[in-house]
């Protein structure tokens, strides 16, 4: 270690939200020219610590030094003056403004209080160009709301880059990005590191951590429990530091499920979907693979009646009308949606209510609820899924990401569904909770349910699926079964189809018949 002081030093950071102690004396030290991983299970305080540094959370106590000098960071603007830029876990884009306007938001060039469009264009040009390979065909004057989630995430990153930060916080900024997009971001981060910046990197994807980070700080329950260099440390060791001993979920394909056909889909079209045909059996876990944005989420939403689509869907041999989620739920279909915050939970309502809402009809007579029944049902799910919570009456927004996700699972388990649709169910979930969620998925299948799962992580598909359908441009173009499912094969399948896109897609027939 040299004598020079580190670029960032946070010590004794404390923050309480009501009764929740988000941080209790956490610390972090990062040098310039370093990518510093910030690891820890869900709810360990990573985001809160990052927000304290970025000025958007007021800590109850904290000592912050930048370049060895103690500072107070009273607001995001104060942080910006210190050269700190942040990409938060939650996007902070204004949907109505254009990509260009969002990029320069809060730092619009201009004179005497007036904006200069030309100067703004000059500033955003290089950033868009830099992100171009990942961003694809996005123009500066396009409203941000027209962009896909991954593209929006990249704009958010661009916004931070535009500030030419000395200290950059990336809080799960890669969670909604696909492999090739991540590669572009990593390249940029490495350049920043080379230029002497310090990058704080939060991710639940261990391979990203080992790939990119130089050192890492590990948080548990709001406290810093370790600081370690990354090179030479086994991933298992990192996991143990984070969550203690996790019983890794092993891939277990066993025999092919041979239950009867439970879900039958023919010519499903609408939105991005262009004629999906598939079948799934009781007890089977079917994955949806392919490049991101090929219609996987749309397929799940359409099967759940949440978006308009045409085609035939049968459950247990009887046709299903894709009228509404309500109708789908009545037929024993459940969907754990991709965006937990806006689609999965009722943030201000209690955990109990969130667990109960989908199965409410089962516990009521003539519209009157049985309160005791509801509590018991919620309790049973908390126990079955090992949800960590203070009180069933606490708002669901007080839970960490992984536990909130389990609540969404629990809500649907209470309906005893026959077909379970999962859209990226472990996005932003820590390794420990992830393993539990995999076990839940397995158990569901073992109990006879059909599970269809979309994931942004290939490893997830490898771990849990009996069969993977690879999607391309709204249709199913390849199928991997049993031991064929490897990360390598998944990537190949996705790319091979992608490369072959010059051919009329109609030439390829669906190879999905079981």
């Amino acid at each position, binding site marked *: 270690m040299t004598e020079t002081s580190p670029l960032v030093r946070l010590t004794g950071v404390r923050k309480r939200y009501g009764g929740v102690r988000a941080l209790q004396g956490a610390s972090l030290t990062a040098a310039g020219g370093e990518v510093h991983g910030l690891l820890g299970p869900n709810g360990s305080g990573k985001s809160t610590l990052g927000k304290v540094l970025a000025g958007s959370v007021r800590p109850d106590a904290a000592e912050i030094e930048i370049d060895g000098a103690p500072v107070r960071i009273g607001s*995001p603007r104060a942080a910006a003056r210190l050269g700190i830029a942040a990409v938060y876990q939650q996007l902070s884009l204004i949907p*109505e403004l254009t990509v260009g*306007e969002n990029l320069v938001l809060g730092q619009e060039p201009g004179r005497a209080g007036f904006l200069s469009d030309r100067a703004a264009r000059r500033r*955003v040009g290089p950033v868009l160009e830099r992100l171009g390979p990942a*961003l694809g065909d996005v*123009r*500066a004057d396009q409203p941000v709301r027209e962009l896909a989630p991954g593209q929006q995430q990249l704009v958010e990153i661009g916004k931070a880059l535009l500030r030419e930060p000395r200290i950059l916080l990336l809080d799960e900024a890669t969670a909604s990005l696909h492999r090739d997009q991540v590669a572009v971001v990593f390249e940029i981060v490495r350049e920043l590191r080379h230029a002497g910046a310090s990058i704080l990197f939060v991710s639940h994807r261990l391979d990203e951590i080992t790939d990119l980070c130089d050192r890492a700080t590990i948080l548990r329950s709001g406290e810093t429990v370790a600081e370690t260099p990354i090179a030479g440390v086994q991933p298992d060791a990192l996991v143990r530091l984070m969550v203690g001993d996790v019983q890794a979920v092993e891939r277990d394909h066993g025999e092919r499920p041979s239950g009867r056909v439970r879900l039958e889909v023919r010519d499903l079209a609408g939105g991005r979907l262009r004629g999906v045909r598939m079948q799934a059996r009781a007890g089977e876990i079917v994955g949806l693979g392919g490049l991101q944005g090929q219609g996987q989420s749309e397929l799940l939403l359409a099967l759940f009646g949440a978006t308009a689509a045409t085609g035939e869907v049968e459950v247990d041999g009887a046709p299903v009308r894709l009228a509404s989620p309500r109708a789908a739920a009545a037929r024993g279909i459940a969907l754990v949606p991709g965006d937990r915050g806006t689609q999965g939970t009722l943030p201000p309502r209690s955990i109990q209510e969130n667990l109960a809402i989908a199965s409410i009809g089962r516990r009521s007579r003539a519209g009157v609820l049985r309160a005791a029944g509801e509590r018991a049902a919620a309790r049973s799910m908390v126990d079955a899924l090992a949800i960590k919570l203070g009180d069933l009456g606490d708002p669901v927004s007080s839970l960490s990401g992984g536990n909130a996700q389990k609540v969404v699972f629990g809500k649907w388990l209470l309906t005893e569904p026959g077909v379970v649709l999962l859209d990226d169910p472990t996005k932003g979930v820590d390794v420990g909770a992830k393993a539990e969620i995999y076990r839940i998925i397995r158990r569901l299948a073992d109990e006879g349910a059909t599970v269809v799962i979309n994931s942004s992580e290939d490893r997830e598909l490898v771990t849990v699926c009996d069969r993977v359908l690879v999607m391309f441009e709204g249709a199913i173009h390849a199928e991997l079964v049993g031991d064929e499912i490897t990360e390598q094969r998944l990537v190949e399948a996705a790319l091979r189809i992608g490369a072959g896109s010059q051919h009329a897609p109609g030439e390829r027939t669906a190879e999905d018949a079981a």
Partner: protein
Amino acid sequence: MTATAPPPVDERTPIGERLGRVRVASWATAGLLVAAVVLAVVLQPGITTPYGIASTFATFLPLVLVAVAQAVVVIGGGLDLSAGAIVALSSVVAVQVMQGSDGLALVGFAAAIGTGLACGIVNGLIVSRLRLQPLIATFATASVFSGLALLVLPTPGGTVPAVLTGTFRQAVATVPVSLLLVVAVALGWLVVRRLRIMRHIRATGGGPAAAFASLVPVAGAQLASYAICGGVCGIAAMAVLGNAGSGDPFIGGDLALNSIAAVVIGGIALRGGIGSPIGAIAGAITLSLASTILFSIGLPTSWRALASGLVVILALALSALGAPRRQR
């Protein structure tokens, strides 16, 4: 990979493409405006005479101004139910200051704008610093402002300098001043929209939390939006005085709700972040013409209010339907 062409950031978007992206709301707003103008002219030929044009625009000007003021607040994600009370207070202050003297007209103008600005700043501070819900906060301040108006001018009266009322009724080379003023308001907006603070106001309306995280001075933007609204209401107060020729503490009771209706007809979403005061001007004119049209078709009086309610709800529905929806 790097073969992907860089986005065409340095070029201006082709005009055709821009037109293609004009929002439906603009078409709904424009369609309503055109329909209203045509109907009004056909049914009430009197309004095409020089006096008709001058008096029509003179009548519209206060609502046009308040609608523009309201639009700024609404775009910023707020709402100002006190706009009418601000107009009343500013107008009575101006009347008291001017005392009917031509020489004091400019001072009166400054007093009206100053009063409006002060009211706007009070609203802005309450909403941005006390963080009260705008609807109810401005309902409360409306009560305060109208009480103060009653204090400043306990009973209607006082005269407005002749230079004001006179100018308001004049024409410059056959174009009525009132029409010129409406055009000036629109042109004024074209300048104001270039202000950085307007971008911040729009961003705040589009998503306060996101804007705050993006280093937008959210509280400042909210404060500014209410302050601008108040200041413009002060100008509207002078237009009201130009019309009225005298002060009245109860003037402008309908302005707040009418301005909100005008804003919606103008394609501005009440949830903020979307739209332009130009739409609000169109909305204000449409709304004002609607009452002229209903008057001209000669419905029995007891049906007039119902018809007017139906017309307004229809116009609101059309505009709201046409307005872009924020996707969640």
